[in-house]
């Protein structure tokens, strides 16, 4: 009951922030609010006992993305260009996708249902082995790094590749060599 109440409050906050983002035209406000949105979804993951996911969401979603957006904001106008065009098609797509997602959620087993299929495939073996045989209390780490080691290797490679790609676009575009000493000492744009 308490968890339900907390969830409802958090969803209320998220809805309020989403509506505020929709009606706001100031870029700075939108970025800060999307950070708050991530923080609230992190709180929601804590409520679901998914502490590791909450951790990641708080660090990446609320922390780093916000910083990146703020860094990118320096190159954008502060106000959104107001577009008075009709938005029927995007609205329609959003509603159809939302309805499909809701329909999909209906078919999911209830949260924490012990008889759900996912809890009967490999999960019991992982839970039993992780602590008794390997002495690693955090099963999430065991699954992530050991049982699903290939997936995590793939994730690491994805992060690496994405980083290389973005660095090539940004540094390659400006033609700047990544040197420890900035080649132009007269300009100091960072100390505004």
């Amino acid at each position, binding site marked *: 009951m308490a968890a339900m109440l907390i969830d409802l409050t958090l969803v209320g906050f998220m809805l309020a922030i989403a509506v505020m983002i929709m009606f706001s035209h100031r870029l700075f406000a939108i970025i800060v609010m999307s950070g708050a949105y991530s923080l609230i979804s992190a709180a929601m993951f804590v409520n679901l006992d998914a502490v590791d996911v909450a*951790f990641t969401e708080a*660090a990446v979603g609320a922390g780093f993305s916000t910083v990146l957006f703020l*860094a990118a904001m320096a190159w954008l106008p502060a106000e959104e260009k107001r577009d008075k065009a009709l938005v029927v098609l995007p609205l329609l797509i959003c509603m159809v996708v939302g309805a499909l997602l809701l329909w999909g959620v209906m078919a999911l087993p209830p949260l924490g249902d012990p008889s759900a299929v996912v809890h009967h495939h490999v999960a019991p073996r992982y839970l039993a082995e992780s602590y008794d045989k*390997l002495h690693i209390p955090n099963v999430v780490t065991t699954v992530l*790094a*050991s049982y699903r080691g290939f997936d995590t290797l793939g994730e690491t490679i994805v992060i690496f590749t994405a980083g290389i790609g973005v660095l090539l676009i940004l540094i390659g575009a400006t033609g700047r060599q990544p040197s420890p000493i900035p080649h132009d000492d007269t300009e100091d744009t960072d100390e505004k």
Partner: protein
Amino acid sequence: MKNNPVLRVCSKVLFAPIILYGLYVQFHGDYGPGGGFQAGVIIAAAFILYGMIFSLKNLKKVTPPSVVHALMGIGALIYGGVGVVAFLNGGEYLNYNYLAADYAKGQHWGIILVEFGVGLTVASTILGLFMAFAGFEFSDYKQRKRR
């Protein structure tokens, strides 16, 4: 922002504890929530804070971009290397049971090393991205395009 005493003092006080916390999350991942992904972001956050307060120029002296870019690959290589070591010891690729004589110990070593690789890659990628974004000069870009 370096001329604001509140920001300067707070960031100086916070810098070391943030890194310490990041290391705790990194190496305590077996026992509590956390692991390489989270720790990487936290450690990168400490350097980003430093860069935001004390200018990008000083951050580039602390963490030279060339080193950061190299660490991106090294982290991924550590992960892959653990798999190769397991492979050479007679097991399957990434089968940590073969890393040590005792399979539980092998799993411990494997997980710690792999998480270290992940943390290295994530931290350096995020730091590299931040430096690239913050140091991006739009005028250079336009000039380049015109040429």
